């Protein structure tokens, strides 16, 4: 964003007050803080509008790939560290299919990409894109596989081919699906940019020699009329991956250096190396990570890391308030309660599961606050617990006439006993003490 003084220079300096601010300088200061809109000034020139609009563009361009419900948005990030506000557009994972695969293999690969999905705390975690790579060197084959894959999936596509002629042939058939084209290089940039411009598709710019060379190539592609650019710096190892991604992010959001203000694409490959690249890129500024293959056993931790890193730091992940049956309880099983803060819930859950003792766990809606914080803030009261237990029918599920409460809220014992008619057992302060307590019951 430009400073107030830079904006002020572009204003008419009439101090007319029609923008509802007493002076043009005051208006400029509000604009700089994004608390006013330029349109509020009736006298601002077209040229000033254009200048300011360009400088107000996000430091990292928002790029869209695909269409419809599965379309993905990448870029448009503003922070270096997730605690500063949040990271907005999660890293997208792509699963690549080679066009040397035969038709049934292609189908199986699409199915594998679709099958790499898990549900977790109410969110669906999955592969976001499918890539088709031209390894055959054959225009007809590449075109056919691209069309076949496009027919088999709703996911956005990445088309990977260095030859602009083949790329154009394959992409033309499916241009309406807005695939990401990979890639423009120093040897094909003009022709590849022409394809991307004509088909209105976002384009990856690839340059592995260094960031100066990459910025040069980006400028060339931009000059050829392509706006939706994605960067691939061809990292040779994790050090380059982490450092180059960090440099690009930092100069873009802190220095507003626009030459590299675009999302980052990383080819991860396959095996352990690929997972490590995926993990580093997920934490540090990767927007698309493409896998030649990935195993469910490593895809799951990768997805969960993404879910963790892209959580809004001001809104903790919450668990649905409900009565949870753990270890197959029956009516003789004890009843416990905890809060719906995911960290609390998962810790308590793990400790109960470890004990192997069946229990009913009532999760109270504390708006994602932990036991102590919720109690202190009045968001975990005996009344709320009693109400939740009534609503879930917990007293019919566990007929012991008892409820185990977290040790931290021992103070609510008598009131809770009075409200529910249940005998209150004060549990441990740390949930790690739960197995011992549960084993000591009857």
């Amino acid at each position: 964003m430009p400073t107030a003084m830079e904006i002020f220079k572009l204003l008419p300096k009439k101090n007319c007050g029609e923008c509802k601010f007493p002076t043009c300088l005051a208006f400029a200061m509000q604009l700089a803080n994004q608390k006013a809109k330029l349109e509020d000034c009736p006298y601002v020139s077209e040229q000033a509008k254009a200048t300011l609009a360009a400088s107000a563009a996000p430091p990292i361009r928002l790029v869209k790939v695909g269409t419809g419900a599965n379309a993905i948005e990448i870029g448009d990030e503003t922070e270096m560290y997730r605690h500063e506000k949040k990271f907005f557009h999660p890293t997208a994972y792509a699963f690549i299919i080679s066009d040397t695969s035969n038709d049934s293999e292609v189908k199986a690969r699409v199915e594998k990409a679709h099958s790499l999905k898990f549900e977790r705390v109410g969110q669906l975690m999955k592969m976001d894109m499918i890539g088709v790579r031209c390894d055959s060197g054959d225009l007809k084959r590449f075109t056919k596989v691209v069309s076949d894959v496009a027919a088999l999936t709703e996911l956005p596509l990445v088309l990977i081919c260095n030859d602009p002629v083949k790329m154009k042939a394959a992409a033309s058939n499916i241009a309406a699906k807005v695939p990401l084209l990979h890639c423009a290089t120093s040897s094909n940039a003009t022709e590849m940019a022409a394809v991307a411009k004509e088909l209105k598709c976002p384009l990856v710019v690839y340059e592995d020699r260094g960031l100066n060379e990459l910025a040069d190539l980006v400028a060339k592609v931009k000059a050829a009329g392509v706006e939706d650019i994605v960067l691939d710096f061809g990292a040779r190892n994790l050090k380059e991956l982490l450092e180059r991604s960090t440099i690009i992010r930092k100069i873009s959001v802190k220095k507003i250096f626009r030459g590299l203000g675009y999302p980052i694409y990383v080819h991860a490959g396959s095996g352990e190396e690929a997972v490590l690249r995926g993990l580093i890129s997920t934490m540090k500024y990767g927007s698309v990570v493409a896998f030649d293959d990935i195993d469910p056993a490593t895809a799951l931790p990768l997805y969960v890391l993404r879910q963790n890193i892209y959580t809004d730091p001001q809104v903790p992940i919450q668990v649905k308030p409900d009565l949870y049956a753990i270890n197959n309880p029956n009516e003789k099983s004890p009843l416990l309660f905890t809060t719906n803060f995911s960290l609390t819930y998962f810790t308590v859950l793990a400790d109960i599961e470890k004990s192997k003792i069946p229990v009913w766990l009532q999760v109270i809606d504390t708006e994602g606050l932990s036991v102590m914080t919720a109690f202190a803030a009045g968001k975990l009261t005996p009344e709320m617990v009693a109400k939740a237990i009534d609503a879930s029918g917990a007293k019919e599920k566990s007929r012991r006439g008892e409820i185990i409460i977290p040790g931290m809220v021992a103070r609510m014992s008598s009131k809770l006993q009075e409200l529910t008619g249940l005998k209150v057992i004060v549990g441990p302060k740390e949930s790690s003490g739960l197995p011992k307590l549960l084993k000591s019951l009857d």
Partner: protein
Amino acid sequence: MVEVPIPKEKWTGKIGTTVIGAVAEEGGTRAKKVVIGGQSCMPFLSFEAPILNRPAIAGEVVDTLRDYPPLARKAFGDVVEDPVQWAKAWVEKYGVDLICLKLYSTNPEEENKSPQEAADLVRKILAAVPVPLVVYGCGHEEKDAKVMEAVSNAGSKERLLLGHAEESAYKSIAAASMANNHALIAFSNLDINLAKQINILLTDFGVRKENIVADPLMASLGMGLEYSYSVNERIRLAALMGDSMLQVPMVCDTTIAWKAREATEENESLGDIEVRAAWWEATTGLAALISGADMLIMRSPKAVQIIKKAINELLGGA
């Protein structure tokens, strides 16, 4: 040619170093010391400043298998029955930099082993392996005071890293560390202010800063990792910006990863359970490193192998 600016941050602070282990000329018997910390940039950003000390890895050894996951045991086979053999396997087969011994069997509510027995085990492990040793008690405040005193004496010239001091209980372990010039772990519960507070308490008590390693509590992947990740980053940023009370190296215990259900759940659709558990721990460890950890305490040899490879590459090796 476009000149891309390299955004070097002008940090005013620097992380201090902590030495663990003592070699012959210092009266110890370790083959090599481990030095952690010393960084003057955010993790692995060598364009800002040279990375002086590579992150260290400690292999976990527990003296009772009471709460030890059977799946983790599989990786070692029978050696886990004997902490000494276990420690040797870590060093000889998996090349860890240190051993982290957790004396859970001293818990008075469980096996209740005596401080003397604990000290004997420490001596045996020191005799069996050439690497430095991290030693934790069982978490029972009164018992730990006695156990750690005995441990401190048993390794008197070896410069152990003793775990851990926390706000409500730090004096006895601080005394145990000061008595024989050991380093100690300052534990805090997922909060930058608490991390600072325990360091202040320790230094006020007389513990020198170069003897402190901070443990801000690493949460497992899927169980609050994001909080830890941000707490670690905030601690490291504050230290680099000049907060001297946070300028100590950081240790993260990634064995916590084994607590997450998804890490070890029997469920075919989630993929091979051994691969998954190892990656669950490795992912937790990698997040710890990227957010600021200078040392990891680890359980799975496979996860250790993954992390060693990652560290090598992050430092520019092949």
